[in-house]
C-alpha cells in the first residue's frame, strides 16, 4: 500500500443502531458501526449511489479502522413496524401500505454511557488513491456531505467532525506488546490479549465488505474492550502508528 495520508474523523450522535446480521425481527445491535456501515457512511458523504461504491471502498483499496471513544450502553425498546405479507411492494395486499396493521418489535439502541452527552466513534481511513482521499478530506472539511451521516439507521441522525489528515503515520509489523486504540480483528492477535483488572473484551462477528449486489464478501471477529480505551496485545498483523494533534496511537485496520 502506498503511503498516502491517513484521514481521521469522528462520527458522533445521540444514539445509534447497528443491526447484527443475524437478527432482523428482534434486532440486536453491534456496539460500534461495522466496517460495511462505515464504508456506506463515507460513500454517502461523498455522494456515491447505493450500488456504486463496493469497489472503491472495498478491502483491497480502502483501509478503515475504528475506535470507540465513548463507552456505550444498550437499551432495548419496542418499536412499531408494519406487518407485511405477500409481495411487499404491492399496495393493498398487506405490503408497505399498512393494511396488515402494526407489529411491535424489540430493537436494541446504542446510547452513550451515563455521564456522556453523545456517542463518539473515531474513524481512520486511508486509500490507495491519493485523489480519492483528497476529495474525502474536502467533504469533511467543508462540513457539507452529499448525503447526511447517520448512525446505522436513518432514525439516528449523526454528524462528522474532521479531526486530522496526516502524513505522519506508518504501517508495519511490531514484535512488542502494544496498546491498540481501535477495535481489533481477532485474526490479528498472535496470543491472547492482556486481561488487566476490569478489562471487558467483547467479540463481535461483523461483516467486513459487501459486493455491488450487497452480498457478503468477507466477515470477521472483532474484539473490543468495553471497559476502556485500549486492548493491550501482541500482534502478528500490521499495526499502524499515528501522531496527530496531541495524540499518539496504535491501530489495526478492519480486514
Amino acid at each position, binding site marked *: 500500500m502506498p503511503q498516502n495520508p491517513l484521514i481521521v474523523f469522528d462520527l458522533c450522535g445521540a444514539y445509534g443502531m447497528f443491526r447484527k*446480521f*443475524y437478527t432482523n*425481527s428482534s434486532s440486536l445491535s453491534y456496539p460500534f458501526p461495522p466496517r460495511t456501515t462505515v464504508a456506506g457512511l463515507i460513500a454517502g458523504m461523498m455522494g456515491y449511489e447505493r450500488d456504486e461504491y463496493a469497489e472503491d471502498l472495498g478491502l483491497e483499496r480502502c483501509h478503515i479502522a475504528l475506535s470507540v471513544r465513548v463507552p456505550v450502553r444498550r437499551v432495548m425498546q419496542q418499536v412499531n413496524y*408494519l406487518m*407485511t405479507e405477500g409481495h411487499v411492494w404491492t399496495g393493498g395486499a398487506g405490503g408497505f401500505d399498512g393494511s396488515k396493521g402494526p407489529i411491535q418489535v424489540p430493537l436494541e439502541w446504542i446510547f452513550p454511557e451515563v455521564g456522556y452527552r453523545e456517542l463518539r466513534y473515531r474513524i481512520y481511513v486511508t486509500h490507495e488513491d491519493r485523489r480519492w482521499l483528497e476529495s474525502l478530506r474536502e467533504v469533511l472539511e467543508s462540513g457539507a456531505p452529499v448525503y447526511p451521516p447517520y448512525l446505522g439507521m436513518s432514525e439516528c441522525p449523526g454528524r462528522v467532525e474532521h479531526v486530522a489528515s496526516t502524513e505522519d503515520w506508518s504501517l508495519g509489523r511490531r514484535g512488542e506488546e502494544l496498546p491498540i486504540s481501535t477495535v481489533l480483528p481477532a485474526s490479528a492477535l498472535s496470543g491472547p490479549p492482556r486481561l488487566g483488572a476490569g478489562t471487558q473484551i467483547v467479540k*463481535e462477528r461483523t461483516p467486513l465488505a459487501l459486493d455491488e449486489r450487497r452480498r457478503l464478501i*468477507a466477515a*470477521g471477529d472483532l474484539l473490543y474492550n468495553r471497559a476502556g480505551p485500549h486492548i493491550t496485545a501482541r500482534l502478528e498483523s500490521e499495526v499502524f502508528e499515528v501522531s496527530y494533534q496531541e495524540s499518539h496511537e496504535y491501530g489495526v485496520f478492519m480486514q
Partner: protein
Amino acid sequence: MIESIYQIGRALLEESGGGRRAVLESLAAAPPRNRKGESYITILKLNSRKPSLSVELRELSVRGNDAARYLWLGNASGSNPQDRLTSDNLGYLISQNIPNLLEEQRIDPESALYKKLKILVQKLYLDLGEPKEIGVKGGGAYQRNRRLWDLSRLGIKGSSREDLRAEIRGGTKPKNVPQRVVKALRERFPEIPESGVLFTIELDGELLIDDPAYHEYLERRFVDSAFTGDEEGRCHLSGEYGPVTTDMTRFRFKYFITDKSGFASGATKKGFVSNFSLSKEAYRALLVGERFVGRELGFGFAGARGYMIPDLYTVEIPRGFPEALVRTLRSIRNRTLFDIGRVQAGELDEELEEFREEHLASGYMINLLFYKQKQAKFEVLRLIQDIPSYRLEELRAQGFETGRLWEELYGDEARDLTLQQIYYLIPVRKVRKPDGKVEYLNKKILAFYHTLISGGLIDRKELTDGFMELARAYRFGNTGSYQVSAPKEGMEDLTLVRYLAQTNLLLAFLRDLDQLKEEEVSQEYLERLSLDEAEKEYLKRLGYDEQQAALYLLGALVAEIANAQWRLGPEGRGGEKTILNKINYQGMTLPRVQRLATELFDKLRQYRYTDRSGERRPLLQGRNEAIFAQAQELLTRNQRVWRLTPSENVYYLLSGYSHRTFRAMTAREKQPA
C-alpha cells in the same frame, strides 16, 4: 450469541472427530425424566427367525449424554412424518415410524437396513386396510396409523386386526389405535416405566440405530435438506464461499425470520441471502451447538427458563483429556449457578470448580437467554449479553458483604443477598391459564436483572412502589397472585416485617454498588437528633434523608403501640395489633400522615407498659416522647417541600415499624428461657 453457539458446535465437532455418527450424537436431545429425575431406555429386542420379543431396561445417566448413544434426536416436529428409530413415544415406534422410513426412498433401498426393515414389516405388521374397506375417511390420521405391530405374531395377547377394524368402525379415532398395542405391551412387560423412558429396537441382536444407512438418512434429514436450492454465497459465520442456505426453520433459537420479505434486503425473498446465509459446515455446527446448549446449559431462574451461553473468546480450551470442552462449559455453568445464588457454596461441584480455577482464569463472557416455550414457538423473554465472568462474581461478593448489614441492623444472623433471593423481593404477578398452567409475568424482573447485571441505575421510587405492592399482598393475604409463598399461620406479621427488612437490604446493596438512582442527601440532621445508636446507625447506613427519617420515627412509634397491643392478649401475648389498621397500604398523603401522628400521640398516652419496678406507665414518656417530638419537628420543617409520594410515605413508615419490631423479636428470641 450466535457466534458463541457456533463456536461451541464447531469445537464439539472438532473434538469428536466430526464423523457422521459423531455429528448425530452431538445433536442428541435431553431424554425425558420421571419425577425422581431418572431416565431409562427400553430396548425392544426382536428376533426375526422365530418371531419373539423381549425387553431390556437400561438406565441413562443424568450427567452424561447417554441418550446420544441411542441417537435420541427428538421426534419429528409438527406435521412431518415420524421417522425415528429411537423415540419417547412407543405408539410411534410400533406403528408409523418404520413404514415411513421405507417410503419415498428415505432409507436407501439398496441398503441392508432397508431389506431388514422391509422383512420386519412383512413379518410383524398388520395393515388395517384401505379406508373404504372399513368405511372411514382416508385422512392423514388414518393413513399414519393403519400399519402397526401384530402382537399375536409375537405370541403376545392383544387386539387382532379385526378387533381394531371393528373399533374404528365403532368410532375409535385412528390416532388412538396404536395405544391398544402399547397397552398390551405394557401389560406383557410391566417392567417398562410409566414415564421418563425412551424406546429403541434391536433386531436379531443389533440395534437398528447403529446402521450407517440410518445415519445417512438422518444427516440428510437434519442438514442436507436445508440445502436444496442452488444458492451460492459466502457463509456469514465461517466466511467460506460455496452452497449456502437461508433456511433457519430447524433452529430452536430463532435468529432470523425468513418468511417475511419485509425483513429481507431489498424487501424481496432473494434478499435473505444478503442478510444472513450459512454454509453446511456452519449450519451443522449451529445445530450441534444449539442442542448442546439445550441439553447442558439450561437453568431455571426468576420464574423463567434460561440458557447460559458462554463466549470463550480467549480461552484455550484445555485439550489432552477427554471431554475437555464439555467440562469447560459445565464448570462455567456450575459457577454461574453459584454466582446467581441458585446453588450455595456447599452444593458447588468441587471438581468442576477446581477445573474452572485452573483453566478459565483468563475470563469469559456469558450470555443469559431467558425464553418461553409455547409448543413449537420459542419466545425470547430477555437476553442479557456479554456479561464478563467476574461481573456475576462481583455481585455475589457484594451480596455477601451487604448481607453483614442484616446482623448489624437487626441483630439477627447475617445472611447473603443473592440474585436468587432478590427475586422474592420484587413483585412478579402470576396468572393461571385456562389449561391450568401458571404463568409468571416476569418481564419486569428480568429487566431489573438486566439493568443490575449491566451496571445501570435503578430507580428507587419504582422499587419502593414494587415493595409496597408485595407488602400489600402479605398484609391482605393475597400472596397467591404473586411468586411468593403464603406466610405460615400466626407468622403473618413476622413475614411482613422480615420482608420489609429485606427490601432495605436490597436498597443498601444497590447503593453499595453505586447503582441506586437517588438524590444526594445530607445527613447532618442526624447530629441534632437524639436517638439510640441502633436507630442512628440504621438511618445512616440506609442513607435516609429528613423526610424519610420523620416517617421512620413515626413507624417506630407504631411498633411501640403495636407491641403494647400485642401484650394485651391472653397470657400477655398474641393481642391484635389494631394500630396497623390505621395505615393505608395503598398510600398516604402528607396530611394523612400528619393525622396519623396525632392519633399516635393519643395512643401513646393511652397504652401503658410495665417498668422494671412493676409499675404501669404510659408509653408517651422518655425515649418515645423524644422520638415523637423529633418526628413532628422533621415533618413540620419539611412539609412545604415534601417530595415523597403517598406510596413512599407508607414504605418508610413501615420501615420504622419493621426495624423496631424485628429487633424486638430477635432480642426476645435470644433471651434465655
